């Protein structure tokens, strides 16, 4: 485990607590740069509408720059630079999605050192944030750096090219069945079995492990208590608890039901197709995110303590918040997770790495709390074992990726007794948590730390660790 970081500064949450060279502006660097397609006064309205804020009148405004109101208490004031066609802001995932829908926005990139384009460095020092080079290090010429703004349509082209490649492979195999595998052949599902189960090696011929006798906690938006696939599956007594004020554990979002389904969906589900990795695991359901899909650290940490006290051997957390490169991980999560990981037998906490990348345009670092060294960070892959376009990357020594799981087009339970196919590192995380439960069933003596090691030793390597961690999680072959 990496050494503890030096004492971190208190995050600045309001202008009054953040010294600045200009009245009303924080010195802290915003997390994102928004690149507009045109240099237009309308850019301000686009950003203001997406962030649901108004202009902050009189706050260090200039002819060429407009300051908006805080979009979050933790965020700096968004700034729009009309002459450059840029804006800077701290954004949450829903705001990023909202902006990406806008035709006016060409790209949203993390505000990182050394990736700020020269034109900004020399035009407006407020956006440049002095990309300081390490002593003796030579900055590569501009032409060798990663492109700043991707060509329009790049994402579509990427997906299109992948589709052509897959189709070509299928045609080739039709004529030449003996063709050696490229290693990228799609993993197929079936009417009875989700492709995700095949990808992670769930094969009843080789392993009968179903998570029996293992307690897994899902800290999320709750669960559809009436879903036929979960009947009789919850631990009695206080096995389902809501930490969200004013909301019961009944899932009004769907996300929590989906994640719980990946872990413990029935072996013979009502919908016919099996999607649950550990159908006999005992489920603890802690509702720590509201029906709107958000929750406070306080609730989540409370949920972790509750789950550990209730005997959870594995905790699955498909939640997080973005983190900028070199920003420290969250101390409270790390302390709690480290304590439970060090106990015997202990509790392993698994968390989603985050969905803030938009490959090939840009990648974002592993978010919080997955960035904590004592929490297993999970990346998402698709059925071709490629990293998911949205999956966060290991971009600094703080937020390392540990492992990957299926997270694109994942079929699982949904609200109102239904099913849905969705994507996210959220979906990859419960696959890892469930496989951990299988390992514990096969070897109940494993401590949380041994379980961590066992999971990483059993992976199928997929490529660079910055994208996949150790590799793709694999179910135990014995048991």
């Amino acid at each position: 485990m990496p050494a503890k970081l030096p004492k971190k500064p208190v995050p600045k949450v309001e202008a009054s607590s953040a010294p600045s060279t200009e009245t009303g502006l924080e010195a802290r660097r915003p997390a994102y740069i928004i690149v507009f397609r045109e240099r237009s006064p309308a850019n301000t309205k686009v950003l203001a509408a997406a962030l649901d804020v108004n202009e902050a009148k009189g706050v260090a405004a200039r002819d060429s720059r407009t300051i908006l109101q805080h979009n979050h208490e933790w965020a700096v004031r968004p700034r729009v630079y009309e002459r450059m066609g840029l804006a800077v802001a701290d954004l949450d995932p829903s705001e990023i999605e909202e902006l990406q829908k806008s035709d006016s926005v060409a790209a949203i990139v993390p505000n990182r050192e050394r990736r700020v384009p020269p034109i900004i460095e020399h035009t407006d020092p407020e956006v440049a944030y002095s990309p300081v080079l390490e002593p003796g290090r030579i900055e590569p010429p501009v032409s060798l750096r990663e492109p700043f703004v991707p060509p329009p349509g790049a994402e579509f082209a990427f997906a299109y090219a992948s589709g052509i490649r897959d189709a070509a492979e299928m045609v080739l195999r039709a004529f030449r069945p003996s063709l050696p595998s490229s290693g990228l052949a799609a993993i197929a599902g079936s009417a009875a079995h989700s492709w995700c189960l095949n990808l992670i090696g769930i094969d009843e011929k080789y392993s009968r492990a179903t998570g029996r006798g293992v307690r897994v906690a899902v800290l999320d938006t709750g669960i559809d208590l009436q879903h036929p696939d979960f009947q009789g599956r919850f631990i009695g007594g206080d096995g389902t608890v809501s930490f969200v004020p004013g909301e019961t554990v009944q899932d009004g979002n769907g996300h929590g039901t989906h994640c719980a389904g990946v872990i413990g969906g029935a072996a013979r589900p009502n919908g016919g197709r099996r999607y649950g990795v550990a159908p006999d695991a005992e489920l603890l359901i802690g509702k720590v995110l509201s029906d709107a899909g958000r929750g406070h650290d306080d609730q989540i940490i409370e949920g972790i303590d509750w789950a550990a006290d209730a005997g959870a051997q594995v905790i699955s957390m498909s939640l997080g918040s973005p983190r900028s490169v070199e920003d420290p991980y969250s101390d409270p999560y790390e302390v709690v997770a480290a304590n439970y990981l060090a106990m015997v037998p202990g509790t392993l906490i698994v968390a989603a790495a985050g969905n803030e990348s938009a490959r090939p345009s840009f990648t974002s670092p592993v978010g919080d709390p997955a960035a904590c060294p004592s929490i297993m960070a999970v990346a998402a892959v698709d059925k071709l074992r490629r990293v998911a376009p949205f999956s966060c990357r290991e971009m600094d020594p703080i937020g390392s990726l540990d492992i990957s799981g299926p997270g694109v087009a994942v079929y699982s339970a949904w609200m109102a007794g239904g099913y849905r196919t969705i994507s996210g590192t959220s979906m990859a995380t419960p696959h890892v948590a469930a496989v951990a439960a299988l390992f514990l069933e096969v070897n109940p003596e494993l401590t949380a730390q041994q379980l961590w090691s066992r999971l990483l030793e059993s992976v199928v390597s997929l490529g660079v660790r910055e994208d996949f961690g150790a590799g793709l999680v694999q179910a135990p072959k014995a048991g």
Partner: protein
Amino acid sequence: MKVHITLIPSVRSDPGKRQDVLQKLLSEADLSEVNLKRFERHGILSGEMPKEKLPVAEKMNAVQSVSPDGVKWALGKSPTRTTPSSPRKQLK
């Protein structure tokens, strides 16, 4: 504002030192509405603190970090990113 105060490891494991820093935070950093649930087990104090007192708390030797209570989101791509139903404001 709600904060989570993480104590340094040597204080976390010492009940006497924990109480000392708690008293200091109450008197010097105006910590209030203290949640002690995680104090003994993890050495984490949660409570309300005026913003201007954050640097006071952070400068204490026994304090490793002070973290404002943040927000986390469900990390499914769609359709879980539900946004508030209130209509978007327009610039005046």
